């Protein structure tokens, strides 16, 4: 068996009794299962329900060097009321920005129920000293962020220094205070499904409230098989400890059809109780308009031009 490397001292898996090991992932089989679930045919009411859920679970994201208060303000308006012509369309779950833009987002979203999420910890590479990362998190929380999306130190993870990764997550979690912590694994840099599973369990053991696939800054972001591997890790932690950890695919969910495939996986792997913004998020920027277009098509029976949907 591909033996999991020794775990850091002080690290206590939540999976003590029944899974006395990290476990393995079979690449061929997990890809086959993901492909099979991807073929579910979701129609009519079930489709409308899923698309509205996709909106309610969406973290509308802008993470550019060129982001300005004006750009973020526009995004916040879109987040609160995604389709100005249809007030029955729900708001998204959160707006996700860089720390410097958190104050703008907080102001714009006040009273709307839409949360403010901030990336932090030397996003996207994570290659900075731990105290600098912790400081960044503290600032973001002070600015009013409800949620922190941190990145793990992939350099440390890939060189086998799991203790460093673990300790850093613990420190960031402390710095978060009441803010929710999402731990970004950046799966496309981890190389194998075994590593994705290992990093998922590590992030959950260290206290992450959510595990998240990617920064969205690399081409290979969320994929259906990676998503499934992470959901199965979440399921194992829940089975063992009763703790419910959330899941967030990011970067790579571009179409409504694709979003429904992700939701089907959650539904059939973790069950309906995970189909809520409290436990499931989709990080995306381009997805929202496609979902709106599909919803309007379900309502009116016809596709409308992209010009009828605002670009924010």
């Amino acid at each position, binding site marked *: *068996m*591909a033996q999991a490397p020794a775990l850091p001292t002080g690290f206590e898996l939540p999976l003590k009794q*029944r*899974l006395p090991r990290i*476990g*393995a*992932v*079979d690449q*061929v*089989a*997990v890809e*086959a*299962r993901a492909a099979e679930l991807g*073929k*579910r*045919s*979701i*129609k*009519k*009411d*079930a*489709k*409308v*329900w*899923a698309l*509205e*859920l996709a909106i309610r679970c969406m973290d509308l994201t802008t993470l550019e060097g060129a982001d300005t208060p004006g750009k973020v303000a526009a995004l916040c308006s879109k987040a609160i009321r995604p389709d100005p012509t249809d007030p*029955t369309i729900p708001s998204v779950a959160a707006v996700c920005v860089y720390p410097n833009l958190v104050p703008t987002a907080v102001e714009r979203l006040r009273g709307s129920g839409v949360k403010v999420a901030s990336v932090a910890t030397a996003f996207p590479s994570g290659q900075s000293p731990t105290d600098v990362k912790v400081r960044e998190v503290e600032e973001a929380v002070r600015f009013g962020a409800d949620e922190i999306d941190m990145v793990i130190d992939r350099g440390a993870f890939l060189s086998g220094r799991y203790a460093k990764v673990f300790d850093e997550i613990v420190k960031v979690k402390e710095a978060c205070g009441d803010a929710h912590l999402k731990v970004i694994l950046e799966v496309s840099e981890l190389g194998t499904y075994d590593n994705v599973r290992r990093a998922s369990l590590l992030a959950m053991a260290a206290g992450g409230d959510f595990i998240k696939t990617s920064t969205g800054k690399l081409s290979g972001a969320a994929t259906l098989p990676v998503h499934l591997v992470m959901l*199965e890790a979440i399921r194992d932690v829940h*089975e063992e400890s009763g703790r419910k950890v959330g899941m967030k695919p990011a970067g790579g969910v571009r179409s409504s059809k694709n979003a429904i495939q992700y*939701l089907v996986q959650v*539904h*059939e792997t973790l069950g*309906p109780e995970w*189909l809520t913004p409290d436990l499931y998020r989709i990080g995306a920027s381009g997805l929202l308009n496609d979902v709106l277009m599909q919803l309007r098509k379900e*309502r009116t029976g016809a596709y409308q031009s992209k010009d009828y949907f605002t670009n924010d």
Partner: protein
Amino acid sequence: MTELDRRGDRSPVPSDWTYAPAPESRDVVSLQERYGLFIGGEFLEPQAGERFVTVAPRDEEALAEVAQAGPEDVEAAVQSARDAFAGWSKLAGAERAKYLFRIARLLQERAREFAVLESLNGGKPIKESRDVDIPLAAAHFFYYAGWADKLEYAFPNRRPKPLGVAGQIIPWNFPLLMLAWKIAPALAGGNTVVLKPAETTPLTALLFCDVLRQAELPPGVVNVVTGDGRAGAALVDSDVDKIAFTGSTDVGKAIQRRLAGTGKRLTLELGGKAANIVFDDAALDQAVEGIVNGIYFNQGHVCCAGSRLLVQESIYEPLVDKLKQRMATLRVGDPLDKNTDVGAINSAAQLEKIQELVEAGRAEGAEIYQPPCVLPEKGYWFAPTVFTNVAQSYRIAQEEIFGPVLSVLTFRTPEEAIEKANNTPYGLSAGVWTEKGSRILWMADRLRAGVVWANTYNRFDPASPFGGYKESGFGREGGLHGLDAYLDFDGSETFGG
């Protein structure tokens, strides 16, 4: 405001996510009211005039009337094949290949039609007939088309010649796929064929006759006689040169007795009671998928189904928990719904057999689990079932159930796994789940089974030979071995039966 008010004029949505029905349209299939026997390129009435009704197992709807072939009909079909043999066997291999390629392409073009009809008449989920049965059937014709003009290269210095007329009797679990497994190598080798489809699932074989006409296959090269076991028996006794049978071990033994001393060739692909062996280092979630695929694929109507699960004791509890959880997500229902995972049991008789063995399992003391699922009232249905606390001596661990019923046993060491896996009169297939490559090879060396899957299950490919040890039969189908079984060689022994 209630949820409905807020949504204005829009249709109400469910509070929970229930997948809306997604039925595949059956309009692509146009059924005739009655079918004759396909002999010499024509549909002929059965001479004795006997007919029977073939139904849809999902709701017992009568689909069509089918002819019951009598001995005189079978004789006519064999004669027609005999007449066609002279021309067909003399045809250049490249010419035979053209017909086979044409059949393969037509199957692909008409794939939806075949898939819907297969699910309708057989009860299997449309996702399986669409993604497995029909594509694989076409693949078999493509594969053997490629060999038709290369027989000399396939068997160098052995001067391969066709056998003559092959009588082929196929089962109801993969009607079109088994037809392809039988007909494609026979035709590639230059033989002609009389095929008897299973009594409960004749319709795709009859639709296939239409493909043969479209492909302009010379009349008599393939003949199809429908009917129950009497038609099969008549075929066994007729003037054929070879019998190829896939079905139950009892019938296989009867055929072998009947053919003893006649000089007719015989290949048998019979029952199984395969062990699916999971070691404690296996990728558990994927092993669970493999177990589910091994036993609930095609409602367990699979001769190589992984019907005995052997679990290493150290992971027994988490694995069985995961399996039960997974079973609860299986969607049992209308075979034509694209989201259905488990369809209808093929026939009333098969349902009765499954019920009888499950009752025996309960009575012998095994613990039964069936996930909550609502089964349709009409038709033949059985919920996915797993038995734990099963002893090696129980009937459910010994006899082939041929239904969605899994028996779970445990082992402690690799040696014990081998001993238990081999402790059966059957030997068709086995599965091994471990992250350790060397253990896979160690196990494969010792398992007495024709096919050993490693970290997967129920995978088929036309290039890979398939067949059994012991009471699971002899002879191989698929690959070069499958071609060998339809050829005669000058002064040399055949291999693989």
